[in-house]
Every structure is written in structure tokens, then in C-alpha cells.
């Protein structure tokens, strides 16, 4: 089978679960094995089986155990290792989140499974899995061939195309028990939700990003307004993060986050190579900069040469009327 780790976030399955299941459906064409969603924690409800079924899961492996209701590094590791051992999947797909990447590295390491993280595409060539993934923060792309089976891959959110018009099937639910022994070496003391939608670069469909052209930290609120007007996350260049204008969690680029939103609006960012590496696979790029020679224009689909302080307020006003934000 192809196993997709499907975990709810804030009470619902995130979009990346649908993306992973779509990728699983495509891989199924080459591997000819069923697609199963692994849902740990609580018992799945009727609605979950319908939703995951409509996204392409034929089966749900429901590992009901309170120890994995929320992520715990050691409990999740034990669960996934046991399930891989008993179910023997050919392919295991997970979201490239902090948790997903951590879990994938320890589980693949423990079992000696071939692994690639941050994949953007999978192909099955002569029964072998070949993963395409950005390297050097996107300055190049590598194709990685698995030498052994199974293969484990994490995918970057908002990267895989979602399969539309799938047959409305309901996934069959298979409740499985997993043995998890409490590991007292690691205690999760708490999670502090930032509640700051502006900082959620990973899942953002739209990112509005600011650089040195903003001239100072006092001008980031203007950009935040634009981001809010269109439901976007707020990004920043390394230079302004290093200068302390905004927190690192907003940084896009080689020592920040590599992002692939549908729309990336770069405001006052000249486009240093580390930054371009981190955002140039966005589906659509808009650059606003006063310097017509700025390298950012080389990757932009739409360029505006002009004064940020004049253009951003107009853009915010217009976005509010269009998006209704």
C-alpha cells in the first residue's frame, strides 16, 4: 500500500493531507497498490471517512491510542515504526512540517528506509521511486532514486497538484491497535499558538514580503495591512531579519523558509540570491521596487517600478474592495 500520514490540525485535516493523497493516487498508477490514510489518535468519524475517501483514500488505518492524539516525538515514532513493520507499505508520504520532518528522519533512520524530504514530485520508473526535490534552497533540483523499498518522502505544503473530480468513495476504516510505551525522557510542556496568521508562511497561499526598501521596522505595519487585506502571510528578506526589523519566523530564503505560495508579492526586496532561491518556485511573483535594475524583476511575472510608500496603500485599498478582507 501507499501510506499517507493524515493528521488533523485545529480539528480538521489540512489541505496538505489532500495534496499528499493526490500524490499517492499518481504514484499508485506506477505501483499498483492501494492508497491508505494513517489517522492516529482518536477514532475516525463518518465524516472523516467520507472526506478522506473523496480525496482518494481507499482505506483508513485508524491507530486509536490516546498517546498519539497529539504529536509526541517518541510516541509517534513508536507508532509509525510498528505500522510500517506490520503493514509493509511500499511508499510512505508525510507533510514537510516541523513534526513531519523530525518524525520522518528518525523513523526512516531507525528502519534504514530510503528517504527524501521536501519533495516536489514523485515518479515511478520501472517500479523504482524517483523523487524530485530542490537543493541549495532551490538553486538546483535533484532527482533521487531509491535503491531500496519502501520509500519515505515528505512534501512541502502547497506544492503538489490536487486531483480534481475523484469518484465519491468512502474510505473503509480499519481500526488497528498500536503498542506505545510511554517514554519519560521527552515531555511536551506546552504549545503556545502564536495566533499570528501573518507568520504562517508554510501553508500560505499568498505571501506579502518586505525588504530593505521599507526603510525601517516602523514601516512593516503598512505591509502587514496589505497582507491582512488579502489574507496573506507576511514574509521578509534576510537583511531585515538580521537587522532586527522583524522576527526570523517571517524570513523567506536560504536560512529562512523556502516557500511555494500561489502568489508572492515582494515589496522593496532587491532579490539577493539567497532570497530568490527561497521563493522563485512560487506560482506567480509580483515585484514592487524603485530600482528597475533589481534582480527580483528577473523572476517576477509582474513588475512595478515605483515608490512603495505610494503604491502599497493604493494596493491595500484596492485589495480590500476585491477580496473583501
Amino acid at each position, binding site marked *: 500500500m501507499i501510506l499517507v500520514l493524515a493528521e488533523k490540525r485545529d480539528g480538521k485535516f489540512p489541505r496538505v493531507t489532500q495534496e499528499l493523497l493526490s500524490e499517492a493516487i499518481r504514484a499508485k498508477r506506477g505501483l499498483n497498490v492501494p492508497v491508505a490514510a494513517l489517522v492516529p489518535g482518536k477514532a475516525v468519524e463518518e465524516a472523516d471517512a467520507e472526506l478522506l475517501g473523496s480525496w482518494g483514500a481507499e482505506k483508513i488505518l485508524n491507530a486509536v491510542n490516546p498517546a498519539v492524539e497529539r504529536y509526541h516525538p517518541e510516541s509517534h515514532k513508536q507508532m509509525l515504526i510498528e505500522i510500517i513493520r506490520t503493514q509493509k507499505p511500499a511508499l510512505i508520504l508525510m507533510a514537510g512540517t516541523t513534526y513531519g520532518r523530525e518524525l520522518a528522519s528518525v523513523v526512516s533512520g531507525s528502519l534504514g528506509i530510503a528517504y527524501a524530504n521536501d519533495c516536489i514530485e514523485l515518479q515511478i520508473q520501472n517500479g523504482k521511486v524517483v523523487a524530485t526535490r530542490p537543493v541549495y534552497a532551490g538553486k538546483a533540483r535533484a532527482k533521487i532514486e531509491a535503491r531500496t523499498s519502501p520509500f519515505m518522502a515528505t512534501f512541502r505544503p502547497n506544492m503538489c497538484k490536487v486531483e480534481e473530480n475523484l469518484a465519491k468513495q468512502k474510505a473503509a476504516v480499519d481500526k488497528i491497535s498500536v503498542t506505545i510505551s510511554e517514554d519519560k525522557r521527552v515531555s511536551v510542556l506546552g504549545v503556545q499558538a502564536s495566533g499570528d496568521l501573518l507568520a*504562517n508562511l508554510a501553508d500560505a497561499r499568498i505571501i506579502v514580503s518586505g525588504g530593505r526598501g521599507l526603510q525601517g521596522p516602523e514601516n512593516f505595519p503598512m505591509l502587514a495591512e496589505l497582507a491582512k487585506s488579502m489574507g496573506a502571510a507576511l514574509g521578509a528578506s534576510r537583511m531585515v531579519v538580521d537587522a532586527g526589523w522583524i522576527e526570523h519566523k517571517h524570513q523567506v530564503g536560504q*536560512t529562512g523558509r523556502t516557500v511555494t505560495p500561489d502568489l508572492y508579492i515582494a515589496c522593496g526586496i532587491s532579490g539577493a540570491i539567497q532570497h530568490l532561491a527561497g521563493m*522563485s518556485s512560487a506560482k506567480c511573483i*509580483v515585484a514592487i521596487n524603485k530600482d528597475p535594475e533589481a534582480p527580483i524583476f528577473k523572476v517576477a511575472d509582474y513588475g512595478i517600478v515605483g515608490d512603495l510608500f505610494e503604491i502599497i496603500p493604493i494596493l491595500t485599498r484596492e485589495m480590500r474592495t476585491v477580496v473583501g478582507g
Partner: protein
Amino acid sequence: MKITVLVKQVPDTATQIQIKSDHLGIVEDGVKVVLSPYDEFAVEEALRLKEKIGDCEVTALTVGPSQTAEMLRSCMAMGADRAVRIWDKSLEKIDPYVTALLLAKKLESAKPDLLWCGRQAVDDDMGYVGGVVAEKLGLPFVAQVTRFEYLVDKKAVKVVRQIEGGEETLEVLLPCALSAQKGLNEPRYPSLTGMMKAKKKEIEEVNAIELLPNAAEEARTTVIDLSPPPQRPPGKMLQGTPEEMVKELIHELRGRKVL
């Protein structure tokens, strides 16, 4: 306390990447190389703990050819006590799993109390080796740490790490393994005396094949192609007054269904 930091030498983030004609690697001649930025945060955090608690030995450990000695010297110039380099010339195209096995093998007897690495090396961006080494050594692993505190009475560490949409605080008993995320600290520049001292220090060299005779067979993946990212189609520069440009932009974005 024994602290080991796993380090890797990588091309400087400001460099252009030039792909070799065989499409399997990058041109390395003339490329400026550095200690991977996230590993630098890890080294710095190890040194800060050493400065705080005193009785502590910090070792920088890498798998890499002789050129990587330079990076190990910068770790020692920053303040690391020792440096170890594992290599064999037969390992030219090394698989990350093999790298992890070698590191783990070397650490089996050294038994560090605390193992640090960067969240990922900024060349292959895998974020993988640290977790595998931890697992092979039976150490719990927490990735992407932005705050670190040593709880001496509990023989544990308290860490904060970034997760999607927030932060998570964990307490982990030693021995354990952690990966460093940007924001953890501001790494120091090596001092001149540090650099002088580091020059005189010896780097322990370990032969990879003696350490793991079947290293080559342990590879789990093969890089079969390396290419530049697809070229973006030429863009459109908008013209007119700011009002006109904004209106046209919104019209275009709606046409492309990205709004």
C-alpha cells in the same frame, strides 16, 4: 559534560550554483565554502553551555574530505576543544544514510551527553542526518530548537522550538540530540587568538572504511540528476500611474486565479 556538534561544510549561501556537465554534482572550484549556517548556531550554543557550566568538552565532528579541515579549524577557533574528521576517498558521492551511520559509529564509544546539529545543511537541505544519528545512538531527538536551557538539577534540557502556527516547549532528559534553528543565538566570530590556537590543534582523522567496512553498500538513495530549476517565463513590467498599475495588476492576478 561531553557535547558533540555534527557539522558540515557547504557552499556559502551567497554563491551561484553551477552544475557539472554530468548533471550529478556542482562545480566546486572557486566556490567559497563555509560552516553550514545552522551548524554554526549549534556550535555557538554548545560553546555557551561550556562557558556557563565549565566542566565541558565540545567536539566538532564531520564526514568530509581534507578540504573540510578548514571548517573544523573555524569551529575550534570559535572555541571547540576537539575536531574529528571521518573520510575515505572511495566515498566521493556519499549518501546521507551512510554519513549518518559513520557518525553514529564514531559516537558509539564517545557517548556524548548532548548531541547538537543544524536543522539542515544548506546544500542538500535534507534535515535528516541528525535525526538518524540520534536514533542509531538511542537518543531522543528534538528538531528546530530556538531556545535552550540546561536544567542542571534534573540532568535535562528545556527547549523551545518553532512549529507551524506557534511554538512548543519540551523538557528532554540527557543524553539527547537537538537540531538548531535560526534565532537560537548570534554566533560569535572566531577571535584572532582563537584562530592562532586552532591552527596548532590537531584534527583527529578517522578512516571511514575502517569504521564501517561496508559503507558503500549501505547507501539508500542515488542522485541520478541535478538540474537548474525551470526558467520562469519573462515577466511584464506594468506602466502608468500608481493607480493604473495597481488596477492592472489586480486585473491580471484575478485573470490568473491567484487572487
